[in-house]
């Protein structure tokens, strides 16, 4: 099985040869992956080097927490990729981002309106939780297409607050 892992704009071709061998960047590596206590915590020994990290699935990608550092990695098997890249007819659509409440709380302030243009990092909503005022910001520049709450609403965890759409120009590299 062949995969392409993409992180920070770099692409790593990775071929799984068998349970304990992969071809990584043209080199054969001996690997041993073990889940610790059946958790998303993994012990990986690769050519004798021992690593331990957390691996969480994200919307479209995987987040790896390794040695006190976080990596966002998107993985596709080569078939998928080939199909996507050869399929030149279609235009890659503008990205859509759905802002969900990270935890239950009170929306003490909603600082934008539906249809409004926002900058990357701009504060959209202030959510009070754990006695703290938490600022929810725009992950990238775009337009607010759906606004589902108003100031004073109390929201449940994972409740959808609004949708943000990026101009078509955005490249997939900004996935990070």
């Amino acid at each position: 099985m062949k995969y392409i892992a993409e992180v920070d704009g770099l692409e790593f071709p990775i071929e799984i040869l068998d349970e304990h061998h992969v071809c990584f960047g043209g080199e054969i590596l001996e690997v041993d992956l073990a889940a610790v206590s059946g958790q998303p915590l993994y012990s990986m020994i690769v050519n004798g080097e021992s690593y331990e990290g957390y691996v969480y699935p994200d919307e479209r990608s995987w987040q790896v927490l390794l040695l006190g550092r976080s990596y966002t990695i998107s993985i596709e098997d080569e078939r998928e990729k080939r199909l996507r890249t050869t399929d030149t007819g279609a235009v890659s659509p503008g990205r859509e981002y759905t802002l969900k409440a990270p935890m239950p709380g009170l929306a003490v302030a909603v600082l934008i309106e539906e249809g409004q243009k926002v900058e990357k990092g701009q504060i959209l909503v202030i959510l009070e939780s754990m006695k703290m005022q938490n600022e929810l910001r725009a992950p990238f520049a775009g337009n607010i297409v759906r606004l589902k709450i108003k100031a004073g609403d109390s929201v449940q965890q994972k409740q959808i607050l609004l949708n943000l759409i990026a101009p078509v120009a955005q490249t997939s590299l900004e996935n990070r």
Partner: protein
Amino acid sequence: MFKKILIANRGEIAVRILRACRELGIKTVAVYSEADRQALHVRFADEAYFLGSSPARESYLRGDKIIDIARKCAADAIHPGYGFLAERADFAAACEAARLVFIGPKASSIAAMGDKAVARAKVAKAGVLVVPGSEGEGSLRDEELLAYAPKIGFPLIIKAVSGGGGKGMRDVRNIEEMPDLIQSARREAESSFGDGNVYLEKLVEGARHIEFQIMADQFGNVIHLGERECSIQRRHQKLIEESPSPFLADDQSLRQQMGVVAIQASRAVDYANAGTIEFLLDTNRRFYFLEMNTRLQVEHPVTEAVTGMDIVAEQIRVAYGWKLSRKQEDIQWRGAAIECRINVEDPYNSFLPSSGRITLTQPPTGPGVRIDSGVYAGFEISPYYDPLISKMIVWGETRPQAIVRMRRALEEYKIVGVRTNIPFHQTMMDTYPFISGKYDTRFVEEQFSMLDAAENREMYLDIASLMATLVAHSQMEHRAQIYVQPAQKSTWKWVNRQTRPNR
């Protein structure tokens, strides 16, 4: 000695107090909210009583219910911990009225230090510099605050009158942004302390936050246990504390002087039990009295680590009426200690709080490591309370040893199910300003960024990619299809690891 003590708190500090009681042979009573039936403090206590629904104002802030329970179960004292009712003079008075010993200072001392105006007047009389502010004016309305601001000058800080723990604090750079900030400060103060009153205070630039631990008995004996450096803060929330302070390390006379002042300030309000005098030090090593916390501090363990004294046990002894177990000259400091506060906040997502069930926790152990935690694997973190779930304290023969030990311990600490700020601490421990001890209270917000800091650390793009791919593969395997394609060259080379910095 007391027969039975009720702990009017939750989380790690309730557990910390339970431990002290147990070691003193005192029975313990826990109180708990709906969300906390399975909490560690309930499991560890000799007795546990239901208090109310999850929001603090319906449970842990219900002094009346708590006193009621204490009397019903024949407790003879109440330990308030920190936060909640710890600095409420009315609660201390109510305990007294109910013939329950309040393990802390007299209500009058709490009131005196709680009223910033009185507090500052008193210590100012003792010849101590104080940070200029509006506290003398009583509680002002919004327009009054806006009018007073120019007298102090910008930048300034909005602070909650019944504040503490950085709650209800806002920095103000100019008059324009002030109105909104007053609102959000009042909101936060209201929800944290049930009191939305705020006052203004000058913001001292480049300041360090250094505090002294005081211990006093009811016979007028007062000693200090040295200082704690608490300048690593974010939104006025302390994140890392250490003792001794690297800033005072080479300045024994300044430490001496501050210690004496701290003791004077405590005497000024006829203080008994454990307390903390907070100072601001400006870049010219001038120190200003900030306030006194008339309670146990979150960061007390760093002082315990270097002095060997059990501060909570001593609190209980002096509250019972015993003399201090040590004189000032008996206090000896050994080595260096650092505390990292482990919060359920995601440092990669602007420190948003995280909640949910902890599915795995593997605390670091071994030499020189102490964990004070209120959680365990299987426990559900509710959104109702403070995000602090655990404190990691390390001790080393020297500060550098303490730092490398903290690095080691942070890497060992595994918590799955909720996001924590452990990566923030790991990054901080590798940051030059921290290592060299050259930082002020603005460092985290103004100069520190997870991303920039990360730049200085080696990347493991290849390892991370491989790990993610193997995990993805094992999960996709069932739907995987073998797909043959022409061999392809890759110019990319396996990263040479000889240069990897020590983990």
